[in-house]
């Protein structure tokens, strides 16, 4: 059943100065570990940084699947809740594209000079469950950017522990 649940903790994973290459890439992803549900509250992709803003509209997509695609570790920091650090989830940035046509569930696009925000209503927050076939959720740039750029990326999520 849908509906709001009380989170055991709310965390943010944020990384700056991410060097996005001219190839498809997973900007950020998170995985719910055993006995944990993870619900996405917000994802923010900052605009491409620098003195000559990039004039390009780029597709972006959210996927849900079963395998984390590597990337750089991001430390999960507590915003609210009992635990100081999230021991029940993993977050990474700049991994291999984790989705594909068969697992992308949300498509959008954004102008690189503006950035992008994914902020679902509470009732529509995507939720993944640990130790299931779909316990990983991430955000890809599925199409090659025309040129490499630098941006920040953040993920805010709530954990629901069993």
């Amino acid at each position, binding site marked *: 059943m849908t509906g709001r649940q009380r989170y055991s903790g709310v965390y943010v994973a944020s990384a700056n100065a991410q060097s996005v290459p001219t190839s498809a890439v997973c900007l950020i992803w998170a995985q719910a570990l055993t006995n944990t549900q993870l619900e996405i509250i917000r994802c923010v992709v900052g605009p491409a940084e620098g003195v000559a803003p990039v004039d390009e509209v780029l597709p972006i997509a959210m996927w849900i699947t079963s395998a984390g695609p590597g990337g750089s570790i991001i430390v999960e920091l507590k915003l609210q809740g009992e635990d100081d650090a999230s021991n029940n989830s993993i977050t990474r940035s700049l991994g291999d594209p984790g989705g594909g046509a068969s697992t992308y569930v949300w*498509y959008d696009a954004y102008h690189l000079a503006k950035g992008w925000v994914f902020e679902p209503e509470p009732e529509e927050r995507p939720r993944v469950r640990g130790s299931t076939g779909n316990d990983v959720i991430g955000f890809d740039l599925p199409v090659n950017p025309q040129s490499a750029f630098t941006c920040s990326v953040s993920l805010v999520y709530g954990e629901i522990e069993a």
Partner: protein
Amino acid sequence: MRPNGVYVASFGSIAYSTAGTIIEIQASTGPLMVEVWRAWIGPAEGTDPVDEVQEIALYVNDAATTSGTAMSENELQGSADAAATAVAVRGGTIGATPTNLIFDAFHTQNGWLYLPAPEERPRIHQAATDDNIGLQFPVAPDQSMTFSGGIVWAEYG
């Protein structure tokens, strides 16, 4: 009233060049009520952003879009893995004269977001007079453009 499930149907990087259906949900199997929570069109994609303001409309009607492309309905929350009672399509020809609920327009470099408050979320009912709801371009874009977009809905019944 709590829904059975919340679903999303979304398309990526599709070219649109004519007036007609962008995306549509059909309440196909009863008893079912479908409530739209969100719909969006991303900005026109590419390295040379298009400078145009394009009209868009949210509509309901009594016949399913024809010649559209079937889409997957993916679960966001709920107990069911896929929406078996609502069918999502993109593109195609509107099946019957639509009743346009909301007219709007957007600059193609910005995209468009429809996010109604809970009290104003439009509903369609299976086997009712209007059991299809969707987005359309009432007027053809000035040139072919590539968009991403989608729709989020809840199912009851």
